């Protein structure tokens, strides 16, 4: 039970120290406060809050979500109250002194990314920024940035410059031919870490009405269904970059989490699992030491990237 769980994401500019490797995935945990009735927010390694934009956004028309086998599609379209509302109303209520608050940011241009990052740079309650260059559900920006190595690098450079005091994590899209290339390009542009993966672009149809189920036609697939894809991406990226990788995709229990660390991740994010049971991330963090003991994992450092291939 004595497993050391604290991890440090050693970035090129700033380290991010986490008391344990369990984070929540952006867009699945609200602003954190929604889940306070289900567990102690301070027991988590960090909270990645719902994607923020410079101005409030209304998001896409309903239906925005649909359940699929072992997963779900969402096309929420980044509905959020905007960065000012978050800084004034939400951030002061979060336990940012005790656990890392990581803010996921979205913008439709490089310049807007820079302004958003600059706005958050002065907030001492914000430990890190996670750049969303991979949202499949918005018309402008979103995944476009994450599917082009030079655009992803340009956004990373701009945010790095605009938020010099923050750890910068870049969330990568799996909807690319070569995720390693994008990862290397954001590393070269100054990213401190990368999180893999955002949702996989997908569709659900209604045969009777012959219409798409989602108002936005296409959406992003998440949940246990995508775990194998996420593991593959983490494994490929972790071998190819020097900055730490955060694993995300279908993680719902401690065994899933340790599999990602085995594949090379430093930390993990719980996403759709928080919809399966609202205390999923809390339960995972609480149970991790016992499961480490069960699998003979004395420290996460000893487990990380030790996948045996023969």
């Amino acid at each position: 039970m004595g497993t050391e769980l604290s991890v440090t994401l050693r970035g090129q500019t700033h380290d991010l120290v986490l008391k344990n490797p369990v984070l929540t995935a952006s867009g699945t945990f609200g602003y954190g406060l929604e889940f306070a009735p289900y567990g102690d927010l301070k027991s988590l390694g960090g909270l990645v809050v719902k994607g923020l934009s410079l101005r409030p956004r209304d998001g896409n028309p309903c239906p925005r979500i649909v359940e699929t086998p072992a997963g779900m599609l969402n096309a929420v379209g980044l509905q959020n109250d905007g960065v000012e509302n978050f800084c004034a109303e939400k951030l002061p209520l979060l336990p940012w002194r005790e656990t890392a608050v990581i803010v996921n940011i979205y913008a439709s241009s490089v310049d807007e990314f820079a302004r958003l990052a600059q706005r958050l740079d002065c907030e001492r309650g914000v430990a890190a920024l996670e750049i969303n260059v991979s949202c499949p559900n918005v018309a402008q920006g979103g995944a476009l940035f994450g599917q082009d190595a030079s655009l992803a690098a340009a956004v990373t450079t701009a945010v790095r410059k605009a938020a010099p005091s923050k750890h910068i994590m870049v969330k990568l899209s799996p909807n690319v031919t070569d995720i390693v290339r994008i990862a290397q390009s954001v590393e070269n542009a100054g990213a401190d870490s990368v999180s893999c993966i955002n949702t996989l672009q997908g569709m659900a149809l209604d045969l009777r009405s012959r219409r798409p189920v989602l108002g936005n036609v296409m959406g992003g697939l998440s949940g246990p269904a995508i775990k194998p894809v996420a593991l593959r991406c983490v494994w490929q990226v972790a071998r190819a970059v020097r900055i730490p990788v955060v694993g995300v995709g279908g993680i719902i229990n401690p065994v899933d989490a340790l599999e990602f660390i085995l594949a090379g991740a430093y930390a993990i994010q719980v996403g759709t699992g928080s919809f399966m049971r609202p205390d999923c991330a809390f339960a995972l963090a609480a149970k991790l030491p016992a499961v480490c003991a069960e699998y003979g994992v004395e420290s996460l450092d000893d487990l990380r990237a030790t996948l045996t291939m023969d």
Partner: protein
Amino acid sequence: MRLCNDGAGVFVDLQADSPYINQMHNSMYCRLPVLSLTPFNPVKGEARFFALRLPRPAGPAWTRWRPGQFVMLRPDSFGLELPWGRPFCICHVTDGCLICFFQVLGRGTSRMAALKQGDMVSLWGPLGNGFAVEEDNPTLLLAGGMGVAPFVGYVNTHPKPWNVSMLFGHREAQECYPVNNINEFIPLDCWLECGPDDLRHFVDAVRVRMSECASCGGLVLACGPTPFLRAVRDLALELEVRTQLSLESLMACGVGACLGCAAITTPAWPTPEKRGRPVQICRQGPVFWADQIEL
């Protein structure tokens, strides 16, 4: 199965995989064994209407529950295949049990129809806001089909039920719905819909009763399918009668995180910055004043 009380009054299954045991006292999440599943089935064939009884969850939230609130239920039998829980209004809460009422409509409710006594169900709640209670004010309940469910708790907990009456439109036999219990407390006017004429007559009856309610400054509460709520909303605006609607929506989380259940507000919404914008049905609702949301 071995069951024990974890001290907070939450029953936990000791044989279940331990990650499922919630150590947090007062958490609004718990796992409960099914006490009973009762089919409401007047005709031969497969039952499609059920009352599900679970032990009353412990914790302070359950001493303050309000009719119109809901819970998310996720039986273990959903496995990985059906990741979401399902939202159900609270039909009633007694000293010993929590009762939800459901109709088999999709994959989730089909699986729920197969629940047996002792099967484990994850529950989080009570969620949402609940109906207004104005004990001295004449209150008209309008229920369409399954929309009758939250009114069981409403009439059972109303301090002055003689001020409450109900109009109930339904397409299946009356025995399919949990109305006997309501009948004991308040005048219940049931309308069985078989054809288009019946629907028109029901809407006419709703209009007459809502007009009466408007003239005495009463309160109207409605729950049912969206087309029914739309008709009630139109009447509420026309007759200028104070009306609350309990909205139905697809939900993944029930706590305001998935943002799947958005309703658009009108200029009458109380906070200016949210006017004409999406609000979450699970958190700001599911009960809304008819003039404050688009439908």
